[in-house]
Each structure stands twice: as C-alpha cells, then as structure tokens.
C-alpha cells in the first residue's frame, strides 16, 4: 500500500485550520457569556413590569372578534375591553355600570353607567355605545355570548341603558353582563367583517391597559397601563405575556425571569421551597365516565348504578392522578361549590352491592364473569390516549366485580365521533364550566357528544329548564339541588374526579381566582382588578 506518510518539517504550517475553528468557537461562547453578563447587570431602572408565561404563547389578536376561542384568549382581550359588570374574588362588582336594577314586570335590566369613562382614543363612553354593542352582536355574534338573550337595548339617557331580555335568564350577569365586552360605536359602526378587523383601532377599548405590541410568531404580548382609566392608573405599568415551553416554566419562575405561570402538580412543593406563592383553582372541570344509556344493558338504571358502586373513585384519584384531584360527586357539581347538594347519592365503593344489583337483573356468575342466557357480559370502553391510566383502572375495577371490559384507546376525534353516533358502550370524557349550573343543561340535555343527551326523565328536564329562568337566587339553589339528586339517581354519566390546578407567582401582585371564574367562568387567576391600585367599592 502506498502511503503519504513523509512530511517536510520546515514547510509545516503553524496555523492549523483545526485550531482556528476551535478558537472561533471559544470566541463565540465568550461573546454569549458576555451578553448574559450584560443583560443581568446592565438593567436600568424600569417601570414596574409583570411577566406571565405559558407554553402556547399565541392566543390571537386581543380584539373581541379575533382572539382564539379559548379562555386565555378572552383574558388577554379583557385587559383592553370592559364589561358592564365584573367579578372579584367573592362577587360581582360594578365596572362600566355603577348600579343596576331588575324590573321583573318588563323582564328588563336598567344599568346606570359611569360618566367618567373614555375610550383609549379619548372619545367619551356613553349609553349609545352599549346599545350599539348589543345591536352589533345581533348581526355578528360574539363567540362567548348567546346573542338571543338580550332582545333589545335602549338608551334612556346619556348614561342609562335598558336591556330587555327575551326570556327570564338567571345567569344573565355571569353569561352576558359580565362577559360581553363593550365596543366603541364610532369605530365599529363601519366594520363589516369583525373577524378580519385587526388594525390598531380594533383594540381601542375602555380597559385598564392598551396593547403596545403583539407577536404571533413569538407568542408574546406587551400591555401598557392606560393613564386615564376610570379606577385610576393601574399599579403595574407594564404586563408582558411570553411563551416558554411547559418543561422550562418551573426553572424560569425560580430564576425570576417570569413572575407567574401555571404549573403541574408535581412541582408544587419545589416551587414553595423556592419561595413562590402557590394558588389553587376552585374545581370547575370534571372527567366523566360516559355511558350509552340508549343501549342494552346500559339502558337500565340499576345496571348503571352497579357500575358506580364498582368503581372506587377515591382510589382512582390516588392511583391515576397521584392524589392531585378530588373524587367526583355523582351529581356533577363539585362538593366545594356553593351549589352543591350534600344529600346527593354518593355510591360509596361497594363491590358486594354492585354484584347484588347485577344478580337482581338476572345475571349469573360463571368463571369469574357475569353471564346472562349463556352470553358473557362484556362491555367496550373507549377513550383518548390521555385517559389511558384512568381507563385501565376502570377496566380492572369492573372486571373485579365480574364485568368483562374491552378497553381501547383511540384518537380523540374518533372517540368523539363514535360517542356522537351512539356507537359505544362506555367512554371517558372531560369538560369544564362547572361554575354556573347553566352548564348542567348543556351537558345533560344539550346536543352533541359533550352532552349525556339524557332526556327521558321528565321531572329532570323540567327542573333544568326552570333553573335557567328562575330569577330568585334562593329558589334557584333549591332547584339545582334537586337536579343533582335526580341526575345522580339516574346516572346517565358518572363524574370520576375534579383535577387540581395550580398557579405559582412571586407575590409582587396579589393574583387571585375570580369567583365563578373570569367572565363566563375562565379558571385563570389573571383578573385585571389584581393589577389596580384602587379596588372598586
């Protein structure tokens, strides 16, 4: 073999490219170190700034019609736009309206508006803007509010407005007056396509902040305090929303580069040790075992109750949620809610009772499984992959009492489609919104796969209709209590657990969870009132 091995020493160069590239790399590293050092120490005296992070970042342009249809999108919009009323940690508080009155004879609300409110462009806010907003939503429905609830709006004088409802509507404050953002007539009257309205004018509201920047790519928002806000200039000059991957959020909180973020339950104690404040959301979301009550043998109430007795919901929380949840109440409303009925049937874990119910339905135990007419009792359980552990746990528990389960995880949309078409036996599904009981109607008698679509109990149907139109709070509480008892008795679906949700923050702003959630019920502790110097009344 011919090898080029000999070298001519005096010609050998000293500047090896290998060394050059190594030197360049070191230089680059040093440069970066220098930048870090500078950005850490060279910080000038800045206005008070507050940074909130999440892993999605972009929630759309924060105008009423262009933010994405999820809670965080509404929250970003709510810093720019106000509603007639708002909520703090305990109740409704005045916002654009300073006082109000319900006239039951006319089924109408009269709102007295503040007279010191200006839009961000300096124009005065009047009753005409409120009337305009409700008329505008007739033609262009705002995604969070049912525009048929307010039949018509009328300006009595410059600062008084009267809203006529199409029918008595108990959650009017929660769902309409505290959710519908007011938009300026002088800008929106010429807007034909609000979904495509993304100019600087589209974010002119009456809110405590104005938007200085929004970046879709970086998923970041910059808000600046509005000096002429009617509750006084906000105490925090600047709010930033930034995007950080979920795994890095705990490190960013500890390092102090962000002030607040939601955190997974696993890091709660670590965050507490690092001196951060942890706040826990009131329960509003539940995971359910959906039951096909249209189909034998699940159409039998006793059979569904047998399923409930066979599933140990406490153990399910401990094992599948590592204890970071509350065991479900069969009445769906969480035990921590003011609407909760403590007399709701609970179906405490009882295998013997479950077997007894099944035997009462004519089933016989054979080789560890129930049979009827020579056929083995087998049910199909389908769920998206997120519920794999929960599904396996339920399979184990039901098989322990003698119900054979064929458990399969499917792609989420496939599960939804199968449930929608009643092509399933059992399924696992979750939804939020359990703050106001009006949600019960959507998920018990409503349409679509998120609902149990259980309409065969006339009394239950009637109670559900009544709780929406009952304007007397005390009477409504009673109705909702009866609903829970009947629902738990019939069990068209079984609430399994309510997960714990946490936020961690550095305490520089007193973040709090809003009573019944922000606006229509968003479980995020970013209420704009937390950033104000003066709390309303």
């Amino acid at each position, binding site marked *: *073999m*011919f*090898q*080029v091995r000999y*070298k*001519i020493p005096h*010609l*050998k*160069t000293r500047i*090896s*490219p*290998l060394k050059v*590239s190594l030197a360049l790399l070191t230089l*680059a*590293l040093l*440069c*970066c*170190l220098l*930048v*870090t050092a*500078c*950005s850490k120490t060279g910080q000038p005296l800045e206005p008070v700034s507050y940074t909130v992070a999440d*892993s999605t*970042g*972009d929630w*759309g*342009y924060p105008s009423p019609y*262009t933010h*994405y*249809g999820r809670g965080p999108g509404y929250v970003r919009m709510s810093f720019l736009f106000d509603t007639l009323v708002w909520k703090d940690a305990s109740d409704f508080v005045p916002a654009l309206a300073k006082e109000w009155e319900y006239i039951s004879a006319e089924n109408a609300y009269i709102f007295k508006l503040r007279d010191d409110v200006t839009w961000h462009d300096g124009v005065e806010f009047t009753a005409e803007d409120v009337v305009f907003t409700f008329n505008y939503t007739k033609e262009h429905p705002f995604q969070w509010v049912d525009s048929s609830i307010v039949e018509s709006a009328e300006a009595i004088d410059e600062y008084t407005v009267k809203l006529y409802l199409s029918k008595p509507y108990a959650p009017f404050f929660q769902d309409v007056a505290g959710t519908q953002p007011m938009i300026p007539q002088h800008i929106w009257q010429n807007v034909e396509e609000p*979904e*495509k309205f993304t100019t600087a004018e589209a974010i002119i509201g009456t809110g405590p902040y104005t938007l200085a*920047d929004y*970046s*879709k*790519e*970086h*998923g*970041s928002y*910059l808000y600046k305090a509005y000096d002429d806000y009617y509750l006084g200039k906000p105490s925090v000059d*600047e709010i*930033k929303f*930034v*995007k*950080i*991957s979920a795994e*890095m959020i705990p*490190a*960013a909180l500890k*390092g102090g*580069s962000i002030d607040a973020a939601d955190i997974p339950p696993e890091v709660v104690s670590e965050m507490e040790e690092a001196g951060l404040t942890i706040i826990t959301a009131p329960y509003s979301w539940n995971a359910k075992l959906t039951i096909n009550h249209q189909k034998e043998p699940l159409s039998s109430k006793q059979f569904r109750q047998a399923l409930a007795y066979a599933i140990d919901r406490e153990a399910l929380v401990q094992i599948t949620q590592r204890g970071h949840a509350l065991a479900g109440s069969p009445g769906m409303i969480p035990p921590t809610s003011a609407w909760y009925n403590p007399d709701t049937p609970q179906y405490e874990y009882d295998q013997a009772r479950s077997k007894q119910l099944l035997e009462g339905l004519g089933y016989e135990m054979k080789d560890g499984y129930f049979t009827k007419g020579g056929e083995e009792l087998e049910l199909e359980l389908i769920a998206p992959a997120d519920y794999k552990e929960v599904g396996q746990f339920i399979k184990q528990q039901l098989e322990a009492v003698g119900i054979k389960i064929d458990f399969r995880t499917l792609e989420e*949309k496939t599960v939804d489609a199968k449930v929608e078409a009643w092509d399933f036996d059992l399924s696992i599904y979750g939804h939020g919104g359990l703050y106001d009981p009006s949600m019960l109607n959507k998920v018990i008698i409503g349409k679509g796969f998120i609902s149990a679509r259980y309409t065969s109990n006339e009394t239950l149907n009637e109670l559900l209709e009544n709780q929406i139109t009952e304007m007397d709070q005390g009477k409504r509480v009673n109705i909702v209590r009866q609903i829970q008892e009947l629902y738990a008795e019939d069990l068209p679906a079984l609430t399994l657990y309510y997960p714990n949700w946490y936020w961690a923050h550095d305490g520089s702003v007193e973040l709090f969870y809003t009573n019944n959630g922000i606006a229509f019920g968003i479980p995020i502790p970013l209420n704009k009132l937390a950033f104000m110097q003066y709390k309303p009344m």
Partner: protein
Amino acid sequence: MFSIRNLALYLIAMFIILTLNFLLPRMMPGDPLMAIYGEEALVQMTPALKAELVERFALDQPWWQQFAAYLSTLFTGDLGYSYYYNAPALEVILGRLPWTLLLVGTTLIISTFGGIILGIESGWRRSSLQDKSLLTGLMVLGGFPDFFLGILLLIGFGVTWAIFPLAGAITPYSGFTGAALVLDVLHHLFLPVTALILCHVGASYLLTRNTMVTVLKEPYMLTARAKGLSNLVMRYRHAGRNALLPVITRTGIQLGRMITGVLFVEIVFAYPGLGYLTYEALLARDYPVLQGVLLIVAVFVLIANFLVDLSYSKIDPRIRYAH
C-alpha cells in the same frame, strides 16, 4: 451550462408535488371543505362563507376545473386561510420561515464547513490519536437524537448554570436595538444550534474523511508532493477539493429536510420556526398551514437541488463535460 432537460425535470417534480397537494385533502373521507380548512372552520363558517369557498375552489365543478382553480389561486400566492390563526396560511408560514432559515442556515454552514475541515485534518492524520478520538467522539455524538442533546444542553446551560435563555428566539420586550438585538438573537440561537451541530457535524466529517483517505492514495498526490507543494496546499487544494463533492450533495439534500428535521429541537427550545408551527398545526388540525408547510418545504428541496447542481460544475469542472 444548465440544460433544458434538467429544467424540464424540475418542472415535472414540481407538478407532481402540486398534484399531490391538491389530491390529498380531496381524497380524505368526508367534506372536502373541512379537509381543506380543518374543523376550526366549521365553528366559524356561515352559509354565505361556505358558498363563497365552494365557488372559489370550484368544488361543485369537475376535477380538472377544480385543479385549474387550485393552480390559479396558488399562483396568486394564496395558500388558503387558517381558521385557527385567523390569518392567511402564507402569512403565518412566512412569519416563521426566517427563524427556521436562521437556525438551519447557521447549522448547515457551521456543521458542513466544520465537518469538512475536521474531515480533511483527520483524514490527513488518519490512525493518529487525534484522528481516532475525533472519529469516536463525533460518531458517539451523531448517534444521539438532536433533541436529546438539546435537552441536555438546556438543563446544563439553561437551567443549572443559567448562562443561556430557556426558550424562544429573542427576549420579548427587552428594548434591545442594533448590536444588542443581534447579540440577543445569537444568545438565543446558541444552544439549539450547538445541539444541531453536534449531531450533524459527524456526517459531513465522516464523508470528507473517507474521501480524503481514498484521494490521498491517488498518484497525483505524489506528483504534488514531488512538485514541492506545501502541506496546506496539498491538503486543501489538491486532496480537499476532491473530497468536497459528496459533502456538497449531502448538504443540498439536507437543506430541505432540515426545515422539518429541526422540529424536535424547535419544540425543546420553543423556537418559533416552521417545525414548531408544523407541530402546532398538527395538534390543531390546521390543514391549510400543514399543506402550506409541505409545499414550502418541497419548493426548498427543489431549489436546494438546483443550487447543488449549479455548484457542482463550479467545484468540479468535469461535471460540465459530462452532459
């Protein structure tokens, strides 16, 4: 220099890609409008809008008219409308493209040139301790998935020592301008690029080193030595240049692939590029954006191949006579 035949081949490839992009959503079961626009559209779609879209895509017409309508909307730069982002798909994609190009470009340039230099040096000193340790080290690094190296770097330099930022491509609202802004971008770029380079440099290194070892045995190398040329000239001009061809080919093919190949690294670092966009679009079932990305990547692969073809004849004049 560049033949008509070659150009025709490119056009045919482009046509096939466009046809596939046209056929896929229409072959999916169910409503083609939903397949084209994703289910987010169903929430917002009014009957008037639906009628307008059916007309725009000629969905009630025979397939060849649909195809013509599809091509004509494409040539006006219309890649469809993303109902998730509430913006034209092209706008969404173009917003992300520069960041991916920055990431991919920096990685490819450094890893290719780094790989070539290391390969030439290593091949020249084959069997020496330096050669052996480089060979082992780079092969071990190249064996790791890039996102794994990314996570290690992020935990070490981002979380533990806090030298580098944890996420993103810039510090939002830092108020940096000019040089400080450039440094800020580099600062954010450093970890993801390092992870990618460590993972990718091995390939061009190995390729160069192998060719180098073969080339060094050629008689013309002996001639060069006999002429009394310096080691540097022999190594780079005579041996190295011949070792370049396969590396350039590989880099060209890599360019297109890397745009989506950086997906995992972009997710680890929450880097706002096309890979991360693809991931988000997949989760949201945002078909217009997914198809748009597919089209843009396909176009990039074609352009990259074209550039490789061109640079071949510059690097190796023999190619010019081959046609």
